């Protein structure tokens, strides 16, 4: 009692720095603060209220989860936790849980806070009650961090985990897929702060670095001084506002990549990869081709070209695939080696041109030796050796490619015409 009294009278007390209320339920009390952001405000050129109107089609693509197609932002919770550490395990607490949602056209961030660990059960109960209202949830890295942590805290509090009724969209995973190849992604560029500055053109003033958050909470527990803690509350609100904007940005990028020049070509490569994984081969090929016609870093360009060539190979579009390999084979490194192997296969099985096949096979061997084989098991020394020997035999058996009978397709090729 006296402790609470001291806290309240202190000039740096929580209630003064973070306007909110103590609320009580059957498990005790906790602190709750609502921060309202008008829907007309924007971040990264995106008006919050516009995010409310988004449909789920594009988010479902970015999240590779068809359940998200019906996404209704009016029933979506943006979840972000502030914790006592990243080490994981049952001794890591989520002391501040922020839930962002739309109320009318405005955005509310509702923050649940335990003023000490004895309030955890009351807090989790309140969080559970809140989450029950939503059908979807959005997080940044929630799949591997926030959600398992919340589940643990529910269990530790003996409260039913209110998580599984919501389909989930993890922004970090989606951004990794889309922007993983972008130059800014290196060196932590995919952290929320990095994405804010690269994609949303937003930078935070006076932000608390994440690594200090646990210590600030423990300092507050010891001293009751909420001075620094207020900055953690603000940090949590900032995170959620950025998540809302980022969601809008993802939707925009997935929707407008086909319009040349609208989207960073590296992100178009990322989207191409998603489409490829989803089996939308034609659209994926379009994305790669579009990205390749713009300015890409050499490594990403190589990878995109190879991906495009393999899609075309799967579609039996040899006229599309072969020129890519021929161009790459002129270069050096891994993609050149892969291309030589593909050309060797192509000329052996499609054209029955064993001489050229042999030529590319030797080229592959040379490039492979430079690379320090084997990489990825895809091209083993043995495979090339074996192929070269077979080609030698075939060359002597059929010295004139013009008169040679077409050979049956090898194991590598199972479809398509034998010869054009």
């Amino acid at each position, binding site marked *: 009692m006296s402790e609470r009294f001291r806290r309240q009278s202190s000039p740096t007390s929580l209630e003064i720095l973070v306007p909110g209320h103590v609320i009580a339920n059957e498990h005790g009390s906790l602190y709750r603060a609502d921060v309202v952001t008008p829907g007309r405000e924007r971040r990264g050129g995106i008006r919050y209220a516009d995010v409310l109107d988004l449909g789920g089609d594009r988010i479902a693509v970015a999240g590779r989860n068809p359940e998200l197609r019906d996404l209704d932002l009016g029933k979506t919770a943006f979840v972000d936790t502030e914790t006592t550490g990243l080490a994981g395990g049952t001794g890591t607490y989520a002391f501040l849980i922020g839930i962002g949602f739309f109320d009318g056209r405005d955005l509310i961030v509702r923050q649940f806070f335990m003023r000490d660990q004895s309030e955890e059960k009351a807090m989790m109960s309140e969080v559970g009650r809140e989450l029950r209202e939503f059908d979807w949830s959005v997080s940044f890295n929630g799949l591997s961090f926030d959600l398992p942590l919340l589940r*643990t805290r529910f*269990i530790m509090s003996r409260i039913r985990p209110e998580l599984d009724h919501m389909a989930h969209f993890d922004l970090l995973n989606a951004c990794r897929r889309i922007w993983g190849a972008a130059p800014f992604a290196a060196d932590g560029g995919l952290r929320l702060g990095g994405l804010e500055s690269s994609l949303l053109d937003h930078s935070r003033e006076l932000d608390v670095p994440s690594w200090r958050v646990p210590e600030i909470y423990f300092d507050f527990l010891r001293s009751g001084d909420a001075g620094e803690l207020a900055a953690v509350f603000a940090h949590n609100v900032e995170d959620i506002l950025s998540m809302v904007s980022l969601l809008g940005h993802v939707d925009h990028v997935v929707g407008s990549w086909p319009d040349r020049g609208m989207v960073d070509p590296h992100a178009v490569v990322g989207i191409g990869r998603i489409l490829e994984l989803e089996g939308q081969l034609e659209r994926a090929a379009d994305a790669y081709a579009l990205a390749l016609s713009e300015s890409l870093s050499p490594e990403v360009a190589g990878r995109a070209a190879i991906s495009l060539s393999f899609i075309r190979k799967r579609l039996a579009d040899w006229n599309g695939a072969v020129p890519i390999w021929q161009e790459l084979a002129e270069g050096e490194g891994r993609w050149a080696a892969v291309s030589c192997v593909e050309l060797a296969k192509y000329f052996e099985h499609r054209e029955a041109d064993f001489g050229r096949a042999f030529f590319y096979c030797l080229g592959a061997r040379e490039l492979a030796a430079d690379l320090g084989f084997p990489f990825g098991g895809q091209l083993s020394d043995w495979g090339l050796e074996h192929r070269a020997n077979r080609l030698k035999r075939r060359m002597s058996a059929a010295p004139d490619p013009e008169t040679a009978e077409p050979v049956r397709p090898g194991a590598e090729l199972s479809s398509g015409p034998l010869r054009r």
Partner: protein
Amino acid sequence: MVLNPAQIVDRLASSPRFADHVTAWRVAEPRDADYASMPEGISSRLIDALAGVGIDRLYSHQAEAVQKAMAGEDVVVVTGTASGKTLCYNLPVVQKIIESPESRALYLFPTKALSQDQLDELHALVGATDADIKTFTYDGDTPRQVRRAVRRAGHIVVTNPDMLHTGILPHHTNWTRLFENLQFIVIDELHYYRGVFGSHLANVIRRLLRICEFYGSRPTFICSSATIANPNELAQRLTGRTFAVVDRDGSPRGERHYILYNPAVVNRELGLRSSAIDESAELAGMFLGNDLQTIAFARSRVDTEVLLSKLQSNKALSGRRISGYRGGYLPAERREIEESLRTGEIRGVVATNALELGIDIGQLEAVILCGYPGTVTSTWQRFGRAGRRTGTSVGILVASSSPLDQYIVNNPDYFFGAAVESGLVNPDNLYVLNSHLKCAAFELPFEEGDRFGVSTTDSMLNHLADSGVLNKVGNTWHWSVADDYPAQHVSLRTGSVNNVVIIDKTKKPRVLGQVDTFAAPMLVHTDAIYLHAGRQYHVDELDWDEKKAYVQEVSVEHYTDASMSVKISVLDDFASDDSTRLGRGWGEVRVTALPTIFKKIRLSNQDNVGWGKIDLPQQEMHTTAYWITLPVDLEARIGRPAVEAGLLGASHVLHQLAPLFLMCDPLDLGRVTEIRSPFTKAPTLYLYDVYPGGVGFSEVLYRLHDDLLDRASELVSACSCDQGCPSCVGPPSILGVGAKDHALTVLRFGAKQAQAVAGT
């Protein structure tokens, strides 16, 4: 002509060269199987499945254990090697899961290698029932993708204490299915959990049971153990439960001979006996020559390799595959050896205690122990490697000159009597307890009045709160360290956290094996000769910072033996007492060890043929020690050299004899003498636990003070040597003339009747 085991036994008995040096020869009569009817409650489905794997009735001990476990009694099964112990726990577990498929069981094996072996049997049984029972191994090797399935769907989760400690308990919320429905906890090889490992395990079990309580389950324990004096007490200390002991072995066995053999004295003055290695090689050679599958156990890596090379170079055995087996071998190498032993392709194996655990190599026909293994329990376990269900088998203990060996072979009643040692654990070791208390608080908050093993739990928690590790709110303590995971700081097997990797550069560099960091300065210092699989390697360089030793294969006529300079300082005395006949004390100490020199010793005759320096950093450890102080004025009365020799001699015999009471290896204890201790201000002899924080050895020795001194003086005065020998106080070449008398003076000091003897 090839003799069968029974004929060999006859021949040994009638050979004076052998029989004259036998100090005891006991025969265990063959025994028929004692069967019992299938306990009630075993479903017909399971009975059919058992028949399917060739089991149509149970041995009496199996039936008894199964019955008790099914009734919810905590059981510890203590029966011989190959008596079918695994069925004692597999049966109730599988039955329970068939009855109620949500049931779960947790199996704990001390090592990964062992769990694999025991699982094969379980899989066969489960397969035969055709029930949907999922058994998973969860350890460091379990792939990430599989882990989720194990946590959700595994009926039987097989793991080891280390994984339970760092991987499962701190993440118990991922294992709610397991903990809510945990019916059985199986602890196999219970006797393995003694000393420091056992003390840790006891605390891991405390944490486990706290978590079970949180989820509302109360599992039954089923433990199995080799023969020890106190299976009930050990199980109770490890789990906090009271156990029913099942120890009437119903399995059949053939005739077994147990022989204690003391090699002839070849130099009475020096007390030198014929080498135990030579004698063992000869005996093993005879068994192998008659095509008996034979295992020889040596006490150290070096002895293993020397014995192996003697057997491999024995021309009479050419064409028979004889292999080594010890800790430094790589896992794949070991698996191959185990398999070849089972199939009989390998006829002979020379092993260290690495083979002591229940690793399945089948039953052999002859066991030779080259030197006393250190404890009665492990001696019986090793003897247990021989003995098929029918036919004769032989176990021979060949004594070395060490005092403990000599005590055992000269006091056969001690060995054959009921006096197997107790498994000692000290779950309340402050160092161990406190580190697990932190882990426990991380896992679940503590409330006032909660008890974690000791009655002082509250005050320990308050102490942790004072140091900022916990935060007390109301009557509850919560973990409150930022970004920490306490289990990762606690190793259950202190002393072997980091290994030194041995790299063979003879041809293309390859990893030859590894040794633990503590042993590395002695075994793989630069210029050491390291022995592996019967080959010699010269250590070109030991890179201490990188923990790598680079070796090349060589062929030389010597091996190396390293010495350490050890210093001790007392930090705190927990107890001391001057009223006993010599002063005694027990407390916390700091031990520093510095490897100094190594000697080159010729293989053929053990001659010292050179030496070199070892340049490695000093190692430091905090532990507990027991010490004995001599009167300050003793030096004035008998002279300084006599006090020095007496101290050294007494410490030699005490150090060797103490394991008799502790179920530990002499290597688990260290010894130091000081002519004038800065702490006690008197001549002092220390025996310390070679484990950080101590395991409780020194406390027990402190209590046994008088008994220990009596046994030591008995052993020394009964020794047949003149001036001291390796079998009592140590060789006179080191201690000087008269050392035996001086040591006796020390050991008998203040003893009433003994003084009268000394005065004559």
